[in-house]
């Protein structure tokens, strides 16, 4: 630790968005950088709502720190290789410039008054960005809906105790087609030196749709080159159900419903095939704009089997993507649910 100048930030108030670009659903994130604001790398990953530490470890953090020190040692000779790790142009320079946040927060915490309430949370940045698309009545892009995809989206699970080492490869996935094997240590992605799983997520977040990504990995003592081919809709396989910001998507696209893909047993009981839409209503919002579905007649334990004529199997994350790309606030979407064995037709208002 004493090899770094350590800075702790605890809120997003007045956060410089031209510098601090990371996964805003995280509650812990680290950025390694030079005094001239050049980013060496990022650390912090998450894919589970309850277990915030599933995808990180002290061992992994230590290895990322060592790698960041190594990059610093070779700086600025390696500056060109770090170029793609730098922040992208930002529409707003600070959170308070987002229309839905403007005037609500001060640049610093109010330690003498209501300090908790004066705190602007990182997840509010993503909420504010998404609200803008709805207010401007624009389709929500996939990179906004499915930010910072985990490498699991490509069928590659990385070991949180390492920098970026492959722990498992899903058969038939983009990762397997690229030739990745268990134990491969990802060294670079798109030419960017990788020091953590978060660095892989950064490269994926900024990748195109479709995209060809070039990777270099260490297999044993040998450096190998691999090519990942990503399909046009590759981001849509991301599971965003764990994210705090998905709560607001549930308001926009589902009127406050929480939906879960039906289990095999629930499908069997409802006599629905494995490839059919079957989303179980796990929660119906009770208040304000989160009670829109309740007021439209939806009930807990309803089984959603058709949305806007769509009857193919979708996860909640995929359904939100379909609705937020194609349906604007004010539209009412025909939905069919199974309730007590009966088919019930309802209308779900978009927000």
């Amino acid at each position, binding site marked *: *630790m004493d*090899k*770094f*100048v*350590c*800075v*702790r*930030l*605890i*809120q*997003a108030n007045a956060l*410089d968005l031209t510098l*601090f670009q*990371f996964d805003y659903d995280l*509650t*812990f*994130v*680290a*950025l*390694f*950088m*030079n*005094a001239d*604001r050049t980013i*060496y790398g990022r650390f912090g990953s998450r894919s589970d709502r309850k277990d915030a530490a599933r995808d990180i470890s002290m061992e992994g953090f230590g290895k990322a*720190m060592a790698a*960041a*020190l190594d990059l*610093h040692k070779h700086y600025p000779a390696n500056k060109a290789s770090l170029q793609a790790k730098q922040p992208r142009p930002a529409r707003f320079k600070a959170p308070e410039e987002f229309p839905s946040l403007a005037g609500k927060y001060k640049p610093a*915490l109010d*330690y003498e008054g209501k*300090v*908790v*309430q004066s*705190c602007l*949370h*990182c*997840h*509010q940045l993503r*909420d504010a960005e998404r609200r803008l698309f709805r207010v401007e009545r624009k389709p929500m892009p996939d990179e906004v809906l499915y930010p910072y995809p985990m490498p699991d989206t490509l069928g590659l699970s990385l070991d949180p105790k390492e920098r970026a080492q492959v722990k498992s490869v899903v058969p038939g996935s983009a990762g397997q087609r690229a030739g990745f094997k268990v134990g491969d240590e990802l060294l670079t992605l798109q030419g960017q030196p990788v020091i953590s799983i978060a660095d892989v997520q950064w490269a994926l977040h900024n990748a195109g749709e479709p995209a060809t990504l070039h990777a270099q990995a260490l297999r044993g003592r040998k450096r190998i080159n691999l090519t990942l081919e990503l399909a046009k809709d590759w981001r849509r396989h991301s599971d965003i159900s764990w994210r*705090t910001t998905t*709560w607001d998507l549930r308001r926009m696209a589902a009127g406050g419903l929480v939906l879960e893909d039906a289990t095999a047993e629930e499908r069997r009981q409802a006599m629905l095939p494995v490839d059919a839409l079957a989303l179980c209503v*796990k*929660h*119906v*919002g*009770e*208040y304000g704009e*989160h009670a829109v579905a309740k007021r439209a007649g939806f009930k*807990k334990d309803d089984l959603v089997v058709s949305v806007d004529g769509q009857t193919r199997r979708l996860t909640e994350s995929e359904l939100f993507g379909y609705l937020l790309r194609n349906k604007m606030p004010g539209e009412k979407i025909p939905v069919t649910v199974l309730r007590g064995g009966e088919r019930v037709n309802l209308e779900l208002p978009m927000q």
Partner: protein
Amino acid sequence: MKTSARAAAVPGARNSFRGNPLALCAGILLLVSVSLQAAEDRKERVLNDRKEVEAAGRWIYNDLPKGFAEAARTRKPLLVVIRCIP
């Protein structure tokens, strides 16, 4: 604040009070009391966090310009941690 509101939206919390005004009032009072206590706890955590981290002396607390100046002076890299106080 937003996270707390989300956490408070517990499925089925209101149904058990339906049709019983006294129970509903008691429930609301309980919820208000729990929420106030939670807010107070969180305030304590925020205030204590600053005290403890500053006392430890290892971290520059919530002062990024100072961090950049120190990094330039010492030629060390910066480690900036953004950590929400739960």
